[in-house]
């Protein structure tokens, strides 16, 4: 647990403080979307396609319509004619996407029919009575096959399956490859997994016909959600009222829920009754459209005998499944940290986004950065192994030095600050690296498979969504603002208003801590509420590790405006210049004359009641809003694709010790240390919790979790029996060592941390596994490194040995 007092010299920021949110959750008083019950609420069940690719010949819903409690049976034919296609992140207007399939289905699990009934059970009963006649069509499930010109096409109107393909060259890559003493190439494969929150998607809509407003309660974490819904529904955006005050039961990127919400909105308006869709787990896994990146990396690296990397080339083929939302953009975020934490002057990056007949991909924690970090760190380890050099020493030689910041990388982004060598040293010291090496050697002498992994990875944070214009020239997004409204009421209590929902990140704690810091008032008395979308200031939701930076910065900005007004009121009434005043705990006095004082209560009363005591021209009341543009944002990419993408760069070192049981292939993570620098931590318990949670996601992605598909396009891991989420017995105890290099760009020196742990975890675990496999001459560059995959690698030389004998 964190220290009682702030290690940074702040009053509240950085100190151990209980969160605002926890008490309601531990007493069962959270309010999630499924907890909202409206009078007359109807329920939805889905009929999903069993085929990955088929034509819908006919739909017979007669029996379903006649079933008990059924109010409506909706087909894609009816729905699609009355709404517009969902937003797509790249320029691919022919890749239409609707909540229900029309004419053809493009993945097994795609929604075909929605049945609405009095109860969920009745809806599900009736859904089983719907008869859909399909004509099975050829499908394509292999992304390498899908990019061939003669491949089966998922969206024939689009012309090919490739959604985005570009080769970026930054710096003199070919020259560096020609000059370097050594070159290596290999393939790494990141398996399809996701963050899979324990709460599935839930969406509830109610049409307020009197006011012509659609009220929505949904478990979402989605930028520009009300506007996307309104556009698709052909409604004015000011008719969408999304209630951001529902608690979201985990998201980590995936809770987009746009098609779910669109469906219930349309039904609620059509039926004049509130309509809820509560996704069950099977539905969530196959048709929730929340699978993560699914990538083949072809890595090439050029380096010299001293271990200095001169250039690398990364080709990343990403299988986004049957439809595109923002998923192709997940190949864009890595541009912001394309050389990792290393001084690599020349980089080639070739992202290819391709469609197949699989469940669509959606944003997952890190937005494509964790797979890229995994491929980069596998590369660094292979370079070290090739040279016979210590892997830590190799990293030390290539890491950007503390005195080189701010550091501009070839793809145009400038890293704000960092002290990578110091964090690495701290992590190794905390892990007692020499003792760990000895432990590994002892284990190996005893015949066990033991390995150590050390990964050094970046977490880009606070982004301005610059991958949108980078991947789609028609999109000129250069801001990704966030905002906060702050009020001090007549009674002197403080309220912060935020314009997005939270899914466990502790935003109420964040805002109250920041407001307490600026006002010098106890955060425990400060209220923080979530607005709805009609009375909210603009927000882009908590994506991209951004809220400590953006919401924290906006809250501070608004609070400072109010504080400035208080100073002006005091100056006016005390007859001195504001610069002669001292602000302490909300009271303001003349410097050096503590008796000449106006208390917080007096100042508040002047602002709210005594206009005659206010400075001329100041508006009465005490409220301020602040909309903050992303620091360093505001510019479009250059012609060669250089752009400042994220302002702040957190850094993490993972030190992992693993032993693998050769008889079962089961890896045992026996020691796990994370060195972490995300600048100033506003609430250390929250940061540490998210970091441990990120490691757990990393353990899952690295070792257990995969949405496997058969060659015929059927999802093989559609339940928690076969999609394996690590429990408390698979996730090890984790030691976190903090380091603080403040960001010069943010209000308090904070950086983002919502993706911490996940961005370096799979890389570190992969390095440890490969170190353990090295003595048997095996290597693996794929996730998940399942027990079976490891067992097969371990057994192969044994079998060969037995055959030789």
């Amino acid at each position, binding site marked *: *647990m964190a220290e009682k007092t702030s290690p940074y010299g702040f009053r509240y920021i950085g100190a151990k403080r*209980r*969160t605002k*949110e*926890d*008490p*309601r*959750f*531990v*007493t*069962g*008083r*959270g*309010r*999630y979307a*499924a*907890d909202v*019950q409206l009078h007359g609420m109807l329920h939805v069940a889905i009929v999903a396609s069993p085929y990955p690719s088929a034509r819908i010949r006919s739909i017979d819903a007669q029996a379903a319509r006649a079933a*008990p409690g059924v109010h409506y049976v909706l087909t894609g034919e009816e729905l699609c004619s009355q709404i517009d296609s969902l937003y797509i992140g790249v320029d691919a207007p022919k890749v239409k996407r609707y909540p229900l399939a029309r004419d053809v289905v493009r993945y097994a699990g795609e929604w075909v029919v929605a049945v609405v009934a009095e109860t969920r*059970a009745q809806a599900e009963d009736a859904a089983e009575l719907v008869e859909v006649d399909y004509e099975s069509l050829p499908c394509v499930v292999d992304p390498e096959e899908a990019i061939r010109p003669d491949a089966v096409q998922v969206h024939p109107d689009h012309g090919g399956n490739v959604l985005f393909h570009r080769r970026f060259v930054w710096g003199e890559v070919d020259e560096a490859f020609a000059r370097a003493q050594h070159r290596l190439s290999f393939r790494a494969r990141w398996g399809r997994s996701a*963050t*899979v*929150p*324990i*709460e*599935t998607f839930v969406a509830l809509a109610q049409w307020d016909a009197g006011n012509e407003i659609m009220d929505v309660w949904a478990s979402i974490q989605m930028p520009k959600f009300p506007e996307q819904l309104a556009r698709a529904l052909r409604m004015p955006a000011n008719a969408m009222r999304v209630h951001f005050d529902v*608690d*979201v*039961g*985990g*998201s*980590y990127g995936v809770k987009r829920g746009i098609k779910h919400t669109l469906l219930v909105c349309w039904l609620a308006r059509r039926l004049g009754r509130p309509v809820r869709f509560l996704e069950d*787990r099977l539905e969530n896994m196959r048709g929730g459209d929340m699978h993560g990146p699914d990538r083949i990396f072809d890595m090439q690296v050029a380096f010299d005998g001293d271990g200095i990397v001169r250039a690398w080339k990364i080709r990343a083929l990403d299988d986004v499944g049957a439809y595109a939302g923002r998923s192709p953009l997940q190949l864009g975020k890595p541009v912001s940290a394309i050389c990792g934490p290393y001084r690599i002057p020349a980089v080639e990056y070739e992202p290819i986004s391709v469609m197949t007949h699989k469940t669509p991909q959606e944003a997952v924690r890190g937005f494509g950065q964790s797979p890229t970090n995994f491929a980069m760190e596998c590369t660094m380890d292979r370079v070290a192994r090739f040279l016979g050099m210590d892997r830590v020493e190799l990293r030390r030689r290539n890491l950007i030095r503390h005195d080189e910041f701010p550091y501009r990388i070839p793809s145009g982004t400038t890293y704000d600050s960092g002290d990578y060598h110091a964090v690495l040293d701290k992590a190794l010291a905390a892990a007692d690296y020499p003792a760990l090496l000895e432990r590994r050697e002892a284990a190996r002498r005893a015949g066990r498979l033991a390995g150590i992994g050390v990964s050094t990875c970046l977490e880009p944070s606070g982004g301005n969504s610059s991958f949108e214009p980078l991947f789609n020239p028609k999109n000129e997004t250069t801001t990704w603002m966030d905002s906060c409204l702050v009020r001090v009421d007549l009674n002197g209590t403080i309220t912060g208003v935020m314009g997005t929902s939270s*899914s*466990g*990140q*502790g935003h109420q704690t964040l805002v109250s801590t920041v407001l307490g810091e600026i006002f010098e008032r106890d955060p425990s008395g400060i209220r923080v509420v979530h607005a709805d979308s009609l009375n909210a200031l603009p927000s882009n939701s908590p994506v991209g590790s951004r809220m400590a930076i953006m919401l924290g910065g906006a809250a501070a900005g608004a609070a400072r405006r109010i504080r400035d007004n208080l100073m002006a009121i005091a100056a006016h009434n005390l007859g001195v210049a504001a610069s002669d005043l001292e602000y302490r705990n909300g009271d303001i006095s003349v410097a050096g004359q503590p008796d000449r004082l106006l208390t917080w209560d007096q100042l508040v009363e002047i602002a709210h009641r005594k206009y005659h005591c206010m400075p001329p021209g100041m508006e009465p009341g005490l409220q301020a809003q602040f909309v903050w543009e992303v620091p360093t944002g505001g510019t479009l990419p250059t012609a060669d694709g250089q752009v400042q993408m994220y302002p702040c760069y957190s850094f993490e070192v993972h030190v992992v010790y693993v032993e693998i049981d050769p008889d079962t292939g089961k890896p045992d993570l026996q020691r796990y240390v994370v060195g972490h620098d995300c600048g100033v931590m506003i609430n250390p*318990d*929250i940061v*540490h*919790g*998210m*970091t*441990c*949670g*990120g*490691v*757990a*996601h990393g353990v899952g992605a690295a070792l257990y979790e995969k949405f496997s598909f058969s060659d015929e396009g059927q999802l093989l891991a559609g*339940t*928690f*029996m076969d999609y394996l*989420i690590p*429990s*408390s*017995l698979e*996730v090890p*105890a*984790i030691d976190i060592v903090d380091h603080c290099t403040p960001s010069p760009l943010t209000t308090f020196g904070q950086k983002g941390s919502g993706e911490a*742990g996940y961005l370096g975890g799979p890389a570190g675990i992969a390095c440890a596994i490969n170190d353990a496999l090295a003595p048997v001459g095996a290597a693996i560059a794929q996730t998940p490194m399942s027990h079976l995959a490891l067992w097969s690698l371990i057994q192969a030389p044994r079998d060969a040995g037995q055959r030789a004998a």
Partner: protein
Amino acid sequence: MNEPTRRITVTVNGTEHEREVPVRLSLVDFLRETLRLTGTHVGCEHGICGACSVLLDGDPVRSCLMFAVQADGHAVTTVEGLCAAEGRMSVLQDSFCEAHGLQCGYCTPGMLVASHALLDKNPSPTAQQVREAISGNLCRCTGYQQIVDAVLLAASRRSGAAN
């Protein structure tokens, strides 16, 4: 088709509830939708994630794998019932807040039920025993570490109070 129903009497958090329920109604839906006790959550509906855990006569069970009619005549305790008098937090709940043993709060009721049952049987568990006791409850936010811290903190505070 008339939905078959049965009249049941279940004691939930010390209060007796008599209801006519469909025989296929799961216990978790009975708690959430019929009694409006929404503290218990639904995660997977196939008995893996543990989010729906409640105490049945003192033992943790998956309320998604039980029918409401099977709880007839039994005592159920949900997260709401773990609170001390007048809705105040128990030592365990308070320790979850102190150690920040949660984030989104969705798995938390199940975690509290599992660790409450553990501490009833074993007041001084080791970290490994805590991990085993909550291994049937999946959490995607915390990586379990601060949950383990919270349960150990509660154990030490409870034993300190007893001394």
